[in-house]
């Protein structure tokens, strides 16, 4: 099970434009089950021309709500990205880590609030 699986984003989206959250969700839905099985996944952005944060939030950012950071770091890699797109992805990833960290705190606050009422 240690062989790396290459997920070609262009093939999943069917276009060089990665500009929609729905398309990002399709990529996520390909990748997440593989990570769940403990497989190593390389996402290739070969032939991708335009990439936006809304796509990356759906494709990669939301993985931080499903898997521990350590597991993602171990199993997931990206390739064939320009430096500009890597910078954008880094930003999306850092933002996702904060988002889920804050959400946990937010959910905890709500739980405490509801717990107080019970």
């Amino acid at each position, binding site marked *: 099970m240690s062989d790396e699986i290459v997920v070609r984003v262009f093939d999943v989206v069917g*276009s060089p434009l990665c500009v929609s959250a729905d398309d990002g969700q399709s990529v996520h839905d390909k990748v997440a089950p593989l990570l769940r099985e403990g497989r190593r996944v390389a996402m290739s952005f070969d032939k991708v021309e335009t990439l*936006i944060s809304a796509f990356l939030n759906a494709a990669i950012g939301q993985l931080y709500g499903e898997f521990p950071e350590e597991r993602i770091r171990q199993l997931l890699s990206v390739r064939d990205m320009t430096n500009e797109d890597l910078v954008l992805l880094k930003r999306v990833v850092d933002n996702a880590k904060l988002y889920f960290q804050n959400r946990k705190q937010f959910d905890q606050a709500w739980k405490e609030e509801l717990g107080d009422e019970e």
Partner: protein
Amino acid sequence: MIHYLPPNLLGNFRGFEDLAILAEDARELFSNRLEVDFSRCASFDPNMAAPLGAVLADIADRFNTIEIVGVPTVIERILRKNRFLVMYGYSPIEEETSTAIPLRRIQLSDEGLFAEYIQQHIGGKGIPSISDALGRVLRQSIFEVFQNAVIHSQSRLGVFVCGQFLPLEQRLQLTVADAGIGIQANVRQFLGREVSAPDALRWVLEAGNTTKIGAQPGGVGLKFLKEFISLNRGKLQIASGRGYYGFSDNDETFSGLTGDFPGTTVNLQINSADTNAYGSKYEISPDDIF
């Protein structure tokens, strides 16, 4: 009901204020007739056709008939070239050398159509005199704006998008307007408390803030847009509900609008002569992402 447009309807605070007043005046109009009279209007920024289109679509959605009358010849030519008036029965003016990026109404579900529109008109075969690097970042920015509308606006009436290239000023204007629920309603619902429209705009423009509550994080797109505008020395305007935001020369203003502007309009004014490479200052390794 007759509504006279003001002498100048320009892409500035006053212009959005005037459109908000039009929306407010027609708020109670139901199954009736609205005559939008241009006869007092001496100048009209073509990019304001997008928010005007959204405001009028919102009014028409309440079973009202819209008629556009008294359009001065110069403005008529501009608005037939950018096809705003074609929606109201006028014939289009086609020109090989037109600098107008035509007005299109696109449903939120038609993401492919929006992509085609942008590919056709921005860079490549479209407006010629921008660098490849600028074209790339501009396309990213405009897709971010459209995705924001798709994700947050709930606009049943779709979005209105148009643009104008101003060769002498070396400026490219692009405007995306939706007729959805607006930023204030989204922020109020998310925070669970009352928040003013300018404060709602201030909140969404803070890094990391997003009204998304689902599995997908957010809060990067608008910040990306603002950084781009800053580097490009362009202008960004956002009008939503009773809030207005303006950003240029690294100076930002948050103001209240008198009327309730339907949905959200994002207006970008780009310095088309910009030769920035838009590369990052630092190299990042694919191994250093996660």
